[in-house]
């Protein structure tokens, strides 16, 4: 084939330019460490890389959320542990006070300690998570949730529970409201409570309350009234007679599936109220318990009032301890769930990082050998270009 002088210059030149462009590309790859310099180098890979980078950012965000939730739940857990200690100590004090060897004076000292614990408990309930957010206020973080107003304890938080996303579509609560932890605690055995009437003149003391047959129980307020020291009538809130019978001291008294122990001696006209358990906050429970312990015992009647008060308080404290245990169990399982989700997230991000590296990252060994090959090809092209251009017939004219 005929070659033209201009054509061979141009093709030699364009070959060298193409080679230089290839070297430039490889050099950019080497200096950035990236295989893909622009998405058009590998559109599919680039889209995939974009998705992977998004999912990595998402996983990092979940981890941040998880750390936040973990921090709050750890604070909550430690607060709940303190609450449990306080309640156990209060329970011990109540048992101590419920001993016949105690005098009015020693009981008064016990009550003083108990009130100290009550103050401490209020303090714990108003604790923050270290960032100034109340742990037990639900969503209302602007004020301390628990306060004593006019002799009773009020909760100014709400019943909300904040959920935090720790994995794709996986939410975990980062706390519990004070309403659930401290306030919404059933009295008695959790279903039914039995209390003596304040005007009783006998020394009847209520023991353990049991619900033997819940199916028979119809929630209402029932009054057990003794007609004399043995015979009694049970009437519902409407005054209708439910049942009647005779009772000997120390025996159990039962109706509609509910049974309770009644000891001591009752007097005619003494009343005992059996009803569905209302909610009572743990602070009031301790307050009432302390009041019962404080009262001075002068006779059997007042002794019975005190014993009934302490017994009821002990039952309510047990309910509260049970509640705290439940909440602690939940907090523990949330913490465990977070931990396993964080592990899961880090596995996922490891996989995503590897995939991303496969798509984007440069194989340096391959790239460097390609670079040196391209450079030597260019050198050879340059040398041969110069050599070929030196041949000219005009040199011999």
């Amino acid at each position: 084939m005929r070659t033209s002088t201009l054509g061979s210059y141009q093709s030699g030149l364009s070959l060298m330019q193409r080679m230089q462009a290839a070297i430039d590309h490889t050099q950019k790859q080497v200096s950035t460490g990236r295989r893909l310099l622009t998405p058009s180098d590998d559109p599919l890979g680039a889209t995939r890389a974009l998705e992977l980078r998004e999912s990595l950012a998402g996983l990092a965000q979940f981890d941040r959320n998880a750390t936040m939730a973990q921090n709050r739940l750890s604070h909550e857990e430690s607060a709940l542990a303190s609450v449990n200690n306080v309640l156990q100590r209060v329970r011990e004090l109540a048992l101590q006070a419920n001993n016949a060897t105690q005098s009015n004076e020693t009981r008064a000292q016990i009550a003083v300690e108990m009130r100290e614990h009550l103050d401490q408990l209020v303090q714990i309930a108003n604790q923050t998570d270290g960032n100034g957010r109340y742990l037990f206020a639900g969503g209302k973080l602007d004020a301390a949730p628990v306060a004593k107003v006019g002799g009773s304890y009020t909760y100014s938080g709400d019943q909300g529970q904040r959920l935090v996303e720790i994995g794709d579509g996986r939410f975990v609560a980062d706390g519990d409201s004070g309403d659930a932890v401290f306030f919404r605690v059933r009295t008695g055995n959790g279903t039914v409570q039995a209390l003596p009437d304040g005007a009783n003149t006998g020394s009847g003391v209520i023991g353990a309350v049991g619900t033997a047959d819940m199916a028979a129980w119809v929630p209402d307020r029932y009054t057990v009234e003794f007609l004399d020291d043995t015979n009694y009538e049970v009437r519902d809130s409407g005054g209708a007679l439910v049942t009647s019978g005779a009772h000997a001291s120390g025996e159990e008294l039962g109706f509609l599936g509910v049974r309770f122990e009644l000891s001591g001696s009752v007097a005619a006209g003494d009343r005992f109220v059996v009803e569905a358990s209302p909610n009572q906050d743990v602070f009031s429970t301790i307050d009432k318990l302390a009041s019962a312990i404080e009262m001075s015992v002068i006779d059997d009647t007042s002794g019975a009032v005190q014993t009934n008060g302490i017994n009821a308080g002990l039952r309510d404290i047990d309910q509260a301890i049970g509640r705290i245990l439940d909440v602690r169990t939940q907090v523990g399982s949330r913490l465990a769930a977070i931990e396993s989700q964080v592990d899961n997230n880090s596995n996922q991000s490891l996989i995503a990082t590897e995939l991303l590296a496969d798509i984007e990252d440069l194989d340096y060994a391959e790239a460097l050998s390609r670079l040196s090959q391209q450079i030597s090809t260019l050198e050879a092209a340059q040398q041969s270009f110069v050599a070929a251009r030196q041949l000219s017939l005009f040199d011999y004219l």
Partner: protein
Amino acid sequence: MPSVMNTSLTGMLAFQRALAVTSHNIANANTPGYSRQVVDFSARPGTGVGSGYIGGGVQISSVRRMYDDLLGENLQTATTGQARFSTLNDLASRLDALLADPDTGLSSSLQSFFGAVQDVASDPASIPARQALLGEASSVAERFQSLDGQLDDIGKEVNAGVRGAVGDINRLASSIAEVNQRIAVAGGLDRAPVDLQDERDRLVRELSGKVGVTTALQDDGTLSVFIGSGQTLVIGNNAQELAVQQSEFDPTIVNVVYKGSAGTASMDRSLTGGELGAYLEFRDSLLDPARRSLGQTATAFASQFNAQHESGMNLSGALGEAFFDVATPAVNGSANNTGTGSVVASVGDLGGLTGDDYVLTYDGSDYALTNFSTGAAVPMTGSGTVGDPFIADGLELVVSGAPAAGDKVRIVSTAEAAGSVRSRISDPTSVAIAAPTRATAALGNLGDAEISQSVVTDISDPALLSTAVIEFTSASTYTINGAGSFAYTDGDPITINGSEVTISGVPAVGDRFTIEANSGASGDNRNGLRLAGVQSVGVLAGGTVSIGESHSRLIAAVGSTTHQVKSNLAAQDALLTSAEDAVMSQSAVNLDEEAAKLIQYQQAYQAVAQVVAVANSLFDSLLYATRR
């Protein structure tokens, strides 16, 4: 009888001219588009001398250029193709880099924005976290604006490119017409200087780089040039012009028109190949769709986030305001409108939004909608009033005023949205992270029924923030605010004042549940979680495509087109090189060849000069003989 002197003189003249042609070739060895010229010698007929004929020397029968029309046409086609892909590649690569760059792209910005939303959701009472969210919000808005601005800039460059190319085409066309005239005046190809043909081929080749053309050589030696779908650009010494016209709807859009003898005609769709074709192709198939898609993402992002934000409650106990500003679809009236009609467009259904541009035409009695790009009719429902707007492709159009028959407006559904995104909120306490209502169970409840958190189902309910008390009058009936008697079914949703709650379990008589405004709930994050969910929830394309997906689809589309353009460019480069090589090997000068010819003609010239010397000595011999 031919004399030796005369015969040798013809040789001297011929070789002198041949040497001149060779030196012309050598001088033009580096002239692009130059075709080497060759001299054809032929013997002059002799004169009879009775016993036969004696030749009369040599003559130059022609000076030809070495040029193959077929190879020339190949080169022309390859030039058109290469120029098209080279221009496309430059433009598409810029778009590609702009959209996908991790630093300038939208994805990273959206990601950090939603990260900030999550941070606020995990710690709603934190003012610094809210402040950070506002910072991210304005950077997302700025990113949308800056991307839109850069697309705008590329659009302006495309317009300038179109104007430049049209100017070049007109200049080249008139130059070709001029060469045609010079050839015609000289009396056709055989009489005209061959360099004129080279000049014309060079012009046609340059023109092919600007736009795809076809050519036809006429009998009189002139070349006719056609563009588009066969419109005449040059015929004989007459050149037609292309012109750039502003769109009737929007002066920033330019269209190429053909100024023929029968008036102007739009050429946008028929011009292909070359720089001009590439500019138009880039604008129609990459740039405009990218702006629409970006705008669609912006509209979906801002509207969806706004809607969710407006369904929340801020720290001051008020319902959330719109978080972002985003423009409604733009309506551009035609410059030719004579009536006084006006059209207001808004987005009705994000899922139905296509991002396309439309033209609404009034024919004197009815309105008709067509797609601006394809011209296809788009069916509308409704009557165009405020109460019953025209609805088509997710848009709602309200018409008013008195349009004249034939009046048109263009509706740009999303292409201008991205540039209009602004963050509206500057006060961190105005970020609505809490739900507007909360449900609570009274502490004195004796039953074991529980109430779920409230979910707002109708944010526009006027009584949304009023307090409603559900009180059970029996285990299966309840009153609302002391009125009515409603049957209770365990676990069934109850909707009051636009909030929905679920009560489950067995309530006792007198149990009360309250739904009320969620004021003071600085720690509530229910709306915050929903705001974070806006990132992944499907909104576009009938609710199947999320905001992030919408943007990554754009990046993928631009990336794969750019990739395609790149590989086409490589192929076209190779085609062009081979077409150039073919033409050059046929037509371009080889200096060694010319050197050889130089020697050849020089020797021939020396030889005929020697013949003159012989003739001279013959003559001398004769003189010498007759002197005696």
